[in-house]
């Protein structure tokens, strides 16, 4: 029955087309009126995201039109499927000095629903599972079956105005508004009674606004521009709250003081995950131009300041970059690129009550200062040579050295270093033989201590399991977590090739393949390996203005080898 429904749905637009759809095409106008149907089986384990998750038919209107009256021109693109699914772009030109570009995009993004059905467990005191013990894991879904979604809206208005000044100059003023509205799933863990996860739907009402102004002038042979952007994120939804269970022993409800001395809160309704408002201002300066006949420079600098309204935390970023290109010969260009940026985020003191405060053997301080993982200085140097052997072949060779000096994130536990350095070598061949385009690229990157979790996994079985300082009762094996873990390679090799051939204006053929092999042998725990292979081919044939036949095959294989560390709890 379902297959029949799918078949009928597939046929419906074709059957209904002559009656329902009219279309009109001339050189400057295009109108398409029709229907769009879909049938999909719903699978809650995998979000269908942007495609329909139910069987239905929508109307459809596509419109492209343009006209010119004197020196006033407009062009309109519109695609309308429903009030939740539409796209529009309107460009208006006046002479060659004014352009207005308006875009609006709205679509539905379906979100998943997790029923938390895997959270149902009680500890057993024996390996056979016959004697119930204390620890429990439970869950509740307060909005079962609810479908979660958000509609995303993006509106942009940009004005470009050429100024009638002695120095050629122009200004750009822009505004962008984004909105995410809908319902999404919120979850909250409560775990110093029975381990309990609650979930319910919550309203989503997030908005972001960007305004910017850019001034550009051509001074002699240099294009100089300055741009200021102010961006604000505003969360208009009410905070979602959950009741956090009162800390107590899960099996008998006792030991209230003991459990309370191990937690920060409980027995109260508290707000949960909320993206707080933030604002960001950015200044950018850009200079580029030619020096003599053979040299070209591009330089830029920027400064940005990001603030979290709720916490007043402030993140500043400064960047600078410079590129110099030199045409050594008509067929050889060499360039050098230098870039540097630094990020500085506020530190914050986290005031936390002492561990088991007021309890026998307790009182160990837990307050700490959060030094930010953002804080870093990053610099690059890249050298590139582009050699055009003849009209059909060109080769590119490049070398890049990059240094990342983090302030606080350790990436080498042996010496406590926070630095990563890398060298990347790349060679590429591009061929252009009439209607044949082909390229082949090979690269190798050696990375000295890439990003990792230095205290990621438990790795020190030789050490005695020492109890928490000052407390002989409780052993925390997490304290022995000194094993490095990462999914980032320290050596990374890539080979990639692509070939496309255009038989005619109506037919083309494409094939590609890539191979990747990487490993990280700098961890103190294991050697991480990753392998990737992709390949594919496709053939296009344009039957007419509206019909394109495509046949293709894609293959992808990715594999990563790592260890799973299973700590044993004894606490």
């Amino acid at each position, binding site marked *: 029955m379902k297959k029949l429904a799918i078949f009928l749905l597939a046929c419906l637009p074709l059957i209904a087309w002559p009656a329902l759809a009219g279309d009109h095409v*001339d*050189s*400057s106008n295009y109108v398409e009126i029709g229907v769009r149907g879909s049938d999909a089986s719903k699978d809650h384990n*995998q979000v*269908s995201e942007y495609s329909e998750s139910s069987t239905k038919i929508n109307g459809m209107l596509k419109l492209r*039109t*343009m006209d010119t009256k004197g020196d006033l021109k407009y062009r309109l693109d519109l695609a309308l499927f429903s009030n939740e699914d539409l796209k529009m772009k309107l460009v208006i030109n006046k002479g060659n000095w004014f352009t207005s570009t308006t875009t609006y995009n709205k*679509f539905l993004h379906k979100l998943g629903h997790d029923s938390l059905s895997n959270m149902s*467990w009680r*500890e*057993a005191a024996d*390996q056979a*599972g*016959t004697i*119930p013990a204390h620890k*429990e*894991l*439970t869950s509740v879904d307060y909005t079962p079956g609810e479908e979660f979604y958000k509609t995303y809206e993006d509106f942009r208005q940009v004005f470009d105005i050429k100024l009638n000044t002695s120095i050629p100059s122009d200004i750009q003023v822009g505004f962008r508004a*984004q909105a995410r509205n809908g319902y999404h799933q919120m*979850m*909250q*863990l409560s*775990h110093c009674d*029975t381990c*309990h*996860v609650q979930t319910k739907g919550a309203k989503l009402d997030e908005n*972001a606004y960007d305004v910017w102004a850019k001034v550009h002038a051509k001074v002699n042979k240099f294009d100089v521009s300055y741009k200021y952007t102010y961006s604000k*994120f505003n969360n208009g939804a009410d905070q979602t709250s959950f009741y956090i269970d009162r800390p107590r022993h899960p099996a008998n*409800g006792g030991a209230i003081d003991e459990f309370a*001395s*191990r937690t920060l809160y409980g027995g109260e309704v508290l707000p*949960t*995950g909320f993206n707080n408002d933030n604002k960001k201002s950015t200044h950018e300066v850009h200079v580029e131009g030619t020096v003599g006949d053979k040299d070209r420079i591009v330089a*830029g600098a*920027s400064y940005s300041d990001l603030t979290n309204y*709720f916490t007043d*935390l402030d*993140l500043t970023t400064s960047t600078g970059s410079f590129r110099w290109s030199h045409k050594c010969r008509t067929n050889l*260009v060499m360039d050098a690129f230098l870039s540097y940026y630094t*990020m500085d985020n*506020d530190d*914050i003191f*986290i005031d936390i*009550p002492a561990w088991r405060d007021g309890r026998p053997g307790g009182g160990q301080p837990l307050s700490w200062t*959060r030094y*930010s*993982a953002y804080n870093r200085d990053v610099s690059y140097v890249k050298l590139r040579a582009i050699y055009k052997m003849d*009209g059909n072949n*060109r080769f590119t060779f490049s070398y890049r050295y990059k240094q990342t000096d983090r302030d606080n994130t350790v990436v080498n536990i042996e010496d406590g270093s926070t630095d990563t350095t890398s060298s990347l070598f790349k060679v590429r061949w591009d061929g252009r033989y009439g209607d044949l385009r082909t390229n082949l690229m090979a690269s190798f990157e050696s990375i000295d201590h890439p*990003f990792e979790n230095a205290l990621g996994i438990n790795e020190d079985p030789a050490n005695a399991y020492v109890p928490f300082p000052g407390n002989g009762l409780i052993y925390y094996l997490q304290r022995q977590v000194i*094993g490095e*873990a990462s999914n980032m390679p320290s050596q990374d090799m890539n080979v*990639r090739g692509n070939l496309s051939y255009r038989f005619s204006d109506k037919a083309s053929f494409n094939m590609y393949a890539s191979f990747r092999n990487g490993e990280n042998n700098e961890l103190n725990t294991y050697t991480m390996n990753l392998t990737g292979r*992709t390949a*594919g081919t496709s053939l296009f044939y344009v039957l007419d203005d509206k019909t394109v036949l495509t046949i*293709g095959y894609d293959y*992808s294989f990715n594999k990563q080898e790592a260890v799973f560390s*299973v*700590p*044993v709890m004894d606490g």
Partner: protein
Amino acid sequence: MKEAKLFLMTVLVCAMPLAYAGAGGDLVGDESCAGCHEELVASFNKSFHSTFFKKGDGFKCEACHGSGQAHMDSEDPTLIAGPENNMKKLEQNCLSCHSDVVHGLKEKHVMEYGIGCTDCHKVHQPAYKGSLAEYEDQLCLKCHQDVKAKMYLPSHHPVKEGRMTCVDCHKFDGSEDVASENTMPERVNETCLSCHPQYRGPFVFEHAPVAENCMICHDPHGSVANNLLKANEPFLCLQCHQMHFHTALPGYEGDFVPHNHPDRGPFTSTLTGSKRGFLTKCTQCHTRVHGSDLPSEARSAQGKALTR
């Protein structure tokens, strides 16, 4: 000295017509072109360039293709700038009007890959199609087939649905590729956060890879796992973290009602229930993986477990 300058100027003025003839030659006009290329001339008259800009007679075949005199006389296709012959010359003619189109001069496709104007732009098609050879969401993917294949994976940005285009992330303004070090913005993350500003923070409780690079966990072109994750949970998390310490505990076989919450049951436990519970999806409890301003519950985690 004065005589020398006068002589030089005279020579230059006399040589100008010769230079013009050598560079451009005589114009033959559209009607002559249409004698052999009727369809092409007709199609240009309906094109975006012709319709939208309406420059009149000065904006016809030879404005782009150069003088047609020699080509018409000998019928030699190599004597005119066309896509089959003298393509570079044809593309240089594009830049005579589009000198401010910076991507034609500096960006990676042109500089490094040798891609020309006509690889992406088509001038002789109907005006409503614009000047791109394909619609924006298809143009790039025609060459970048590996990326296109990823767009068909279950989780992807809505490019194939026509809700995003490649240039929303990958700049064509001369600053090369978004993921390249030649970009002027601070980092790759800045591109992601321009549409996902809710994750900008800066948060009190951080997750270090979020500060490092979004692409440690996400593949923006598409993935099998939800939310563009490079691997499904818990495997992605376990690449950097150990399993939860409750995972190894045995489970009781049978139903149970929580002692402190008789209203919440009954629940069913199995021998492997702890694995299902603690090793299915880490973000069921650690919901705030992008960072949080609120502390987690247990004091021992010092508030930084990203559960609230």
